[in-house]
């Protein structure tokens, strides 16, 4: 009765995934990132999941709302990552309902860390590595944080931005440049500029990484973008992304 859903499911197990001797081509999901902007945190990702050189899906949702105060962005094995997101959603809600209070941000950050640590055998076997990003804030407190993890579960808070997945190198480079010399810098950007930057970052990543995709403004295909602000979590609609894109130079 301590509100710990992870303990509850370990005492009420259900059959998990098993991997046979001959493992199929592994599915992977890339590319995701988060950065601070003037109203909070932007978390965005493309829609592509790949298996080797095969585009498995261009409609994958990688930015997942865990509760009213936290988001996860998944990169790596979708099977494990989606299960982690679902486990965290239930864990946070179970705690809130059973303990009649919201789980603290520190505990949420550690809950994901624990899941990654428990996934270590699959990570070492090369069949289920996940490199997620987490964004959250304490209820009532306006300042949100961005966290990234190593595969063993170590957690780090990002000062301004974080990225994960195969296209993350390009995105980190651009965000580093903009944070250092941009005008405005990402953390000074308003909502429209931050949305526009998100789509531009994904297009930049896709230029150098075949596994990044699913964003094509010329066909009206945009990123998944969610905002974590004082008002909670908002999903940026396709209509708003089109508006922001046109307000930029509209040139892809």
């Amino acid at each position, binding site marked *: *009765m301590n509100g710990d*859903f992870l303990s*509850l*499911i370990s005492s*009420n197990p*259900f059959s998990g995934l098993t991997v046979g001797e001959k493992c199929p081509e592994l599915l992977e999901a890339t590319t995701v990132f988060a950065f601070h902007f003037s109203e909070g945190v932007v978390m965005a990702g493309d829609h592509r999941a790949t298996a080797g050189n095969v585009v498995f899906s261009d409609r994958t949702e990688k930015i997942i709302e865990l509760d*009213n105060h936290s988001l996860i962005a998944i990169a790596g094995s979708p099977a494990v990552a989606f299960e982690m997101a*679902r*486990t965290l959603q*239930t864990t946070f*809600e*179970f705690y809130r*309902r*059973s303990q*009649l209070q919201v789980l603290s941000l520190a505990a949420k950050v550690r809950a994901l860390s624990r899941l990654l640590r428990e996934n270590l055998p699959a990570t070492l076997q090369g069949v289920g590595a996940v490199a997620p990003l987490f964004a959250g804030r304490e209820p009532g407190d306006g300042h949100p944080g961005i966290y990234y993890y190593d595969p063993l579960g170590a957690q780090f808070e990002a000062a301004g931005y974080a990225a994960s997945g195969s296209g993350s190198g390009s995105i980190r480079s651009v965000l580093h440049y903009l944070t250092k010399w941009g005008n405005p810098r990402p953390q000074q950007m308003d909502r429209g500029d931050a949305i526009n930057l998100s789509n531009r970052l994904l297009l930049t990543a896709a230029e150098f990484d075949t596994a990044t995709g699913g964003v094509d403004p010329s066909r009206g295909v945009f990123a998944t973008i969610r905002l974590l602000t004082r008002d909670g979590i908002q999903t940026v609609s396709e209509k708003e992304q089109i508006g922001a894109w046109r307000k930029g130079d509209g040139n892809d």
Partner: protein
Amino acid sequence: MIEEPYRWLEAVANRREYIEDQLRGATPVFAFSRPEGVLLLGAGPGRTKIFEVYNRHGMAALGNPVDIEKLRQAVIETAHLEGFNRSPDDVTLRRLVGFSISTALKNAFEQIVAAPLIVEALFAECGGAREDDVLVRVRYDGAPEYASNGIVVAFPDREREREACEWLRAQLTGSDPLARVRGLCLTAWSALVGGTEFQDLKPPDPLPAALDKHGIESALIDRSGTGPAQYRPLGEQDF
């Protein structure tokens, strides 16, 4: 003691008497199926009688606070395990009552060598439309009674509980706003606690919005809620 059937029966009868004696003096709780969703209402200092269970599920209870807590934890655990192992849509009140709540209460009631659960409860599930709502009254011995008219009252005295239910049904129309539902509910609450006969009870004008010596706990399982969790505690501004 339990090897002799008549002694077992006597022990169960004693147990029933003990529980009902312990429940005497407890204040009532209510659930209403409304166009806006399911309204839960009770009197207490806050988060002592009305609780969220799952996305579309809530409960209200009276009795020993520790036993209310035991029941609450048990049903929340069952609902979340079911929602996690299957899907949130598979968490239904009929299954929760049938396989968890009623069984747990009946077992606790019949374990005559252990302390009983001193708790009476009602549970609610908000459906997509009003006719899909499920309201159920569960007694301390686990017996469930499903409501067919969109109103459930839980009170230790069964006859008075039935009278309150009928009075409320006669007073309410389908289009009444939540403020009127609350006012009639508080009138029935005062009548139950004060021992007023429902036969002669007329709704006061204006209807009460508060109780003299008690705070009000209320929540709505909101049919129009956009997120997965549709339960929200209500404040004065919501009426």
